[in-house]
């Protein structure tokens, strides 16, 4: 009998071209580029090289695109240059581009899946750490830097050392209204931001199987915040249903062959993992972050940590620094933290399901603070408008904008002012992430909506109960 293999082993071996010095040269099935990939295109130009496989390369305008005033010229010349530079690079290299004017435009990690470009069994890379998102389909997907982007453009391959294999099993039923973001933050709070360092994470268990594709994408998106090289969920009926009738999903005989191959994409019984973690879904509460790293996450009924109670001096120093930056006090109840604004958006939590969850809390209520809603893609935006969600956001007093990375990274000009506190559906509460001196608390879309209508961090569960 052959050795039982993990899903990751199977993905790895099906892409291995050669081995050398403890690394393997891997074939890349799908390469996404965005405005930030310009360093790699410059490298290409320096060598006088062309893109090796333009048919496997797709461009998406997301990082710098404005979320307001679409159709008009971009007022900031530097940002306009970033967007037009991608247009030119894509045109020069015959790369299909979902640019600013394309109705399919959106955030790369939302657009790839919704167009059926992201498929089970593929190796997918992009010069963005949240490429781990695509692992939700049972793909091996990870973020790379500019040198590696250039390497993939020129050769369609990449040198990688095989990561160790990790399985995070989440069993049990989540409480009503909780979602993948809560699971993700519970995991990161448990294992730390380097807890999965050097590992490929497979998410398994009944709570994972019960997640929609949107939820699985949120979870795999956050795998990078646990330090993982990638996050993967084995494809199943939920995956295959999602893929049906998407623009680039294979059809006919190719689809039949794909389904046959995809059926093998699961860890064999008895397969060996280097590191196993178990999480009880029934014990997961709505999580929010208090500090400046995603591992600084606690259930909403907790309080800001007290560094004097921390035995590790380095950790105590870290906590003091984070509390100081965040303008908090040790022991303060999380629900007493007043906020200045909210942001609903990003590759983490701006898909249709996320917008529905937030809108359900905001319906017939008014936000006590200003806020911005930027859908994950132009398609998500259209669908939300068909469902009337835009009206619920607007009626609550929030701004309904176009799609892009927006206030998650702030480079398109959507910024949180210095000293302001933002409840955000994004992935990183790093210092200055949403703007110099900005204070970010990350949480699920429902929890951001609850914070909006409360004016402070709040448990969304009573707000759900009151409605029904």
């Amino acid at each position: 009998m052959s050795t039982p293999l993990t899903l990751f082993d199977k993905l790895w071996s099906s892409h291995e071209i050669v081995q050398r010095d403890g690394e393997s040269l891997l074939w890349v099935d799908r390469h996404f580029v965005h405005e930030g990939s310009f360093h790699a295109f410059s490298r290409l130009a320096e060598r006088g090289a062309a893109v090796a496989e333009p048919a496997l390369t797709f461009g998406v305008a997301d990082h710098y695109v404005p979320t307001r005033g679409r159709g008009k010229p971009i007022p900031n010349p530097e940002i306009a240059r970033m967007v037009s530079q991608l247009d030119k690079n894509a045109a020069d290299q015959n790369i299909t581009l979902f640019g600013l004017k394309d109705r399919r435009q959106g955030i790369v990690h939302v657009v790839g899946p919704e167009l059926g470009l992201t498929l089970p069994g593929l190796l997918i890379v992009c010069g963005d750490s949240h490429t781990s998102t695509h692992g939700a389909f049972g793909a091996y997907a990870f973020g790379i830097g500019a040198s590696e982007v250039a390497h993939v453009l020129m050769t369609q391959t990449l040198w990688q050392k095989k990561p160790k294999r990790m399985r995070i099993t989440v069993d049990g039923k989540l409480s009503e209204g909780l979602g993948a973001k809560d699971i993700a933050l519970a995991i990161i709070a448990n294992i730390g931001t380097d807890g999965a360092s050097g590992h490929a994470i497979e998410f398994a268990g009944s709570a994972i199987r019960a997640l929609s594709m949107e939820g699985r994408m949120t979870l795999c998106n956050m795998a990078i915040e646990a330090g993982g090289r990638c996050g993967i969920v084995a494809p199943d009926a939920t995956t295959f249903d999602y893929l049906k009738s998407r623009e680039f999903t294979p059809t006919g005989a190719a689809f039949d062959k794909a389904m046959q191959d995809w059926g093998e994409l699961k860890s064999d019984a008895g397969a060996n993992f280097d590191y196993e973690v178990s999480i009880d879904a029934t014990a997961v509460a709505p999580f929010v972050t208090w500090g400046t790293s995603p591992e600084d996450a606690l259930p909403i009924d907790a309080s800001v940590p007290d560094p004097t109670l921390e035995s590790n001096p380095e950790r105590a120093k870290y906590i003091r620094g984070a509390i100081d930056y965040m303008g908090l006090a040790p022991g303060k109840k999380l629900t007493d933290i007043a906020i200045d604004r909210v942001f609903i958006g990003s590759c983490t939590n701006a898909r249709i399901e996320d917008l529905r969850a937030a809108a359900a809390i905001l319906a017939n209520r008014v936000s006590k603070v200003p806020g911005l809603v930027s859908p994950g893609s132009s398609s998500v935006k259209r669908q939300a408008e068909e469902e009337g969600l835009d009206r619920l956001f607007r009626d609550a007093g929030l701004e309904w904008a176009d799609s892009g990375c927006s206030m998650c990274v702030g480079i398109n000009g959507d910024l949180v002012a210095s000293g302001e506190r933002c409840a955000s559906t994004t992935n990183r509460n790093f210092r200055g992430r949403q703007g110099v001196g900005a204070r970010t608390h990350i949480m699920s879309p429902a929890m951001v909506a609850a914070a909006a209508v409360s004016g402070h961090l709040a448990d969304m569960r009573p707000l759900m109960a009151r409605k029904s």
Partner: protein
Amino acid sequence: MEKFTRITATACPLPAENIDTDQILPARYLKLPRKGEHGKVLFQDLRFDADGHERPDFPLNRAPWRNAKIIFGGRNFGGGSSREAAVYALFDYGIRCVIAPSFGDIFSQNATKNGLLTAVVTEADGGALTEALTQEPALGVTVDLGQQTIVCGDLHFHFTIDPARRTRLLNGWDDIDLTESFRSEINAFKAANLKQRPWTVPTQAT
């Protein structure tokens, strides 16, 4: 790419945990083209206040460490965003080696492609190094990649690095030339893959 074999230099301690790439290079500088000038904005918001004045308490702004070529960091150094410009900023400033108990994976990979060594040490050795540098800030630190050793005064310990990354740094290799030497294997894989997994090549539904 510049080779890395061995250096002796002052080492600046930045032992805080989770110094992410957003702090190494804030996102607003991601538009900068590569001209060797990213060092000017290294740790911009940690090094300078809102008016552009140096923050005197930031270690790189202090006399013994201003010209450091080595940074000694905390757990999960370089976690977060895949921005390679964070490595450009360190390199252009003059940093050639970062020592830490753990690194963001993508950061380490990017560092290797640019001649910047990321040396992993145990928490205990890290603690001893911090102690030594606190007592004698100007103490020279020698990092030898061939031997995988760090020497600082009386301290002498090993660090870890992936063998392939070590080989690359020692030789200053450019990956693309290496990969092109496997062109026939790549072409053979591509042809076989197309036969075995035809669905991997996207075709637009009509």
